[in-house]
C-alpha cells in the first residue's frame, strides 16, 4: 500500500506503545496502530480519490460500488481513532470511573444499578458478538440516555447516538496476547478505559473534524 496521500492521516497515539501493558502488549499496539489502523486510513483515502474521479466523470455505478469501501475503511478509521483516545495506562487517574467521570458515573449507576452491573452487562455483550465488531457505550445525544450497543465489522456509531467509549473485539485486538481467551481480554480491558475522555464525550459529544482529521 502506497503512502497515504490524504486527506486523512493516522493520528498519533496519546501514550507510548507499551503504556497499556500488561493489559495490552506493546506488540499488539504496534501492529494495531501502525499496520491495521494505517491500512484503514490508506484505503479510505484511496476510495475517496476514486470517488472524486467517479463524481467528475458522472460514473454512477462506480460511485455506488465505492460506498461500502468508504463505509468499511472510514468506519475503521473512526472506530480506531476513538478507541486509542478512550484508553489510558492502567492505574492512571483517568482509569478511575468515579473520580474521573462523576457525571457519567452517576448516569451509569442510575441506568444499571451499579458500576459492576454495568460492566457485567457490557462484558456479556462483548462476548456475545459473533465475528468481528465493536462494543460501545453510547448516549442518545449529549448527556442523553445511555445504552450498550454493538456494531459489526467496522460499522461506526452514528447520530443521534454518541460513542462514549468503544472496545475493539476483532481478534487482532487481543489474539497475540490472549489467544482464544477473549474472556481474559474483556475482563482486563476495564483497567485501561479512559473515563476522563468518556466523561468529556458524554457531556460534549465528539468534535468530528478534530478527532478524525487532525490538522496537518
Amino acid at each position, binding site marked *: 500500500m502506497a503512502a497515504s496521500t490524504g486527506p486523512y492521516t493516522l493520528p498519533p497515539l496519546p501514550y507510548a506503545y507499551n503504556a497499556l501493558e500488561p493489559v495490552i502488549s506493546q506488540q499488539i499496539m504496534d501492529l494495531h496502530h501502525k499496520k491495521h489502523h494505517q491500512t484503514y486510513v490508506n484505503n479510505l483515502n484511496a476510495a475517496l480519490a476514486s470517488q472524486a474521479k467517479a463524481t467528475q466523470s458522472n460514473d454512477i455505478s462506480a460511485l455506488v460500488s465505492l460506498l461500502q469501501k468508504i463505509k468499511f475503511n472510514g468506519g475503521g478509521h473512526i472506530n480506531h481513532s476513538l478507541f486509542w483516545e478512550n484508553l489510558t495506562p492502567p492505574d492512571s487517574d483517568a482509569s478511575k470511573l468515579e473520580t474521573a467521570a462523576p457525571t457519567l458515573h452517576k448516569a451509569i449507576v442510575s441506568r444499571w444499578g451499579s458500576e459492576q452491573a454495568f460492566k457485567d452487562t457490557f462484558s456479556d455483550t462483548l462476548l456475545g458478538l459473533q465475528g468481528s465488531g465493536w462494543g460501545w457505550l453510547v448516549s442518545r445525544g449529549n448527556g442523553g440516555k445511555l445504552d450498550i450497543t454493538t456494531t*459489526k465489522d467496522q460499522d461506526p456509531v452514528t447520530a443521534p447516538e454518541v460513542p462514549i467509549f468503544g472496545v475493539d473485539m476483532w481478534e487482532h485486538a487481543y489474539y497475540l496476547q490472549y489467544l*482464544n481467551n477473549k474472556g481474559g481480554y474483556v475482563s482486563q480491558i476495564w483497567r485501561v478505559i479512559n473515563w476522563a475522555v468518556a466523561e468529556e464525550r458524554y457531556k460534549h459529544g465528539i468534535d468530528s473534524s478534530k478527532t478524525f482529521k487532525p490538522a496537518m
Partner: protein
Amino acid sequence: MSASLFRTSFARAALRAGAASTPKAAGVAGMTFARGKATLPDLAYDFGALEPSISGKIMELHHNMHHKTYVNSFNEASEKLAAAKESNDIAAQIALQPLINFHGGGHINHSLFWENLAPKSQGGGEPPSGALGKAIDDTFGSLESFQGKFNTALAGIQGSGWAWLVKDNQTGNIGIKTYANQDPVVGQFTPILGIDAWEHAYYLQYQNRKAEYFKAIWEVINWKTAEKRFQ
C-alpha cells in the same frame, strides 16, 4: 497413514453414534455426532504437518480450542432448543436460531476445512484433476487464475468469514462465494473447498499480512477431498 487414521476416526464416530449411524451419516466429512451430540473430529495429520504454510501452534489452538468451543456451544444451544420445543416455546426457539447458525456453522465449516487441507507429503497442493480440474479450467481459464480470483475474494472479506468454491446444485456450475462469520454453505450450494479468513486462522504467524497466508495455504490444499465433494 492418514487414510487409516481417517477410518479409525470414522469408525469411532460410528460406534459413538450407535445404531442410529448410517453409512451416509458416517461419511459426512468429519462431522461426528454421538447420541445427537456434535463431537470434535480428529485431524488426519499432526498439528505441525502443515508447516510452513500453517504453524503447529495455530493448528493446535484452532482445532483444540476454537473448533472445540463451536462444538460445545452448538451442543448447549441444541439442548436449549430441544427444551424450547418440548415446552412449545416458539419465541425461545426463534431466539436460539442465531446461536445454532453461528456455532453449528462453525462446527461444519471447520470440519470441512481440516479435511480440505493436507501436508505436502500426503498430496497437499497437488493440482486437481478429473471432472473438478476440468470444471475449474472451463470456468476460470486455469488453476492459477482461479486461485487469483479466490484470493481476491478472501482479501475482500470485511470482518470475519470464509471463502468457498461451491457447486450450484441447480445448474451444476462452480463458483466462488464468501460467507460472513460462520454462515455455512447450505441450500442451493454445495461446499467444495473452503478457506478460513478469520484472523485466528493466521494471526500468530502472519499478523496483518493476510495476503501471505492466502498465498501459502494453496501449498497444503487437499484437492482430492475437493474432487470427491464435487462428485
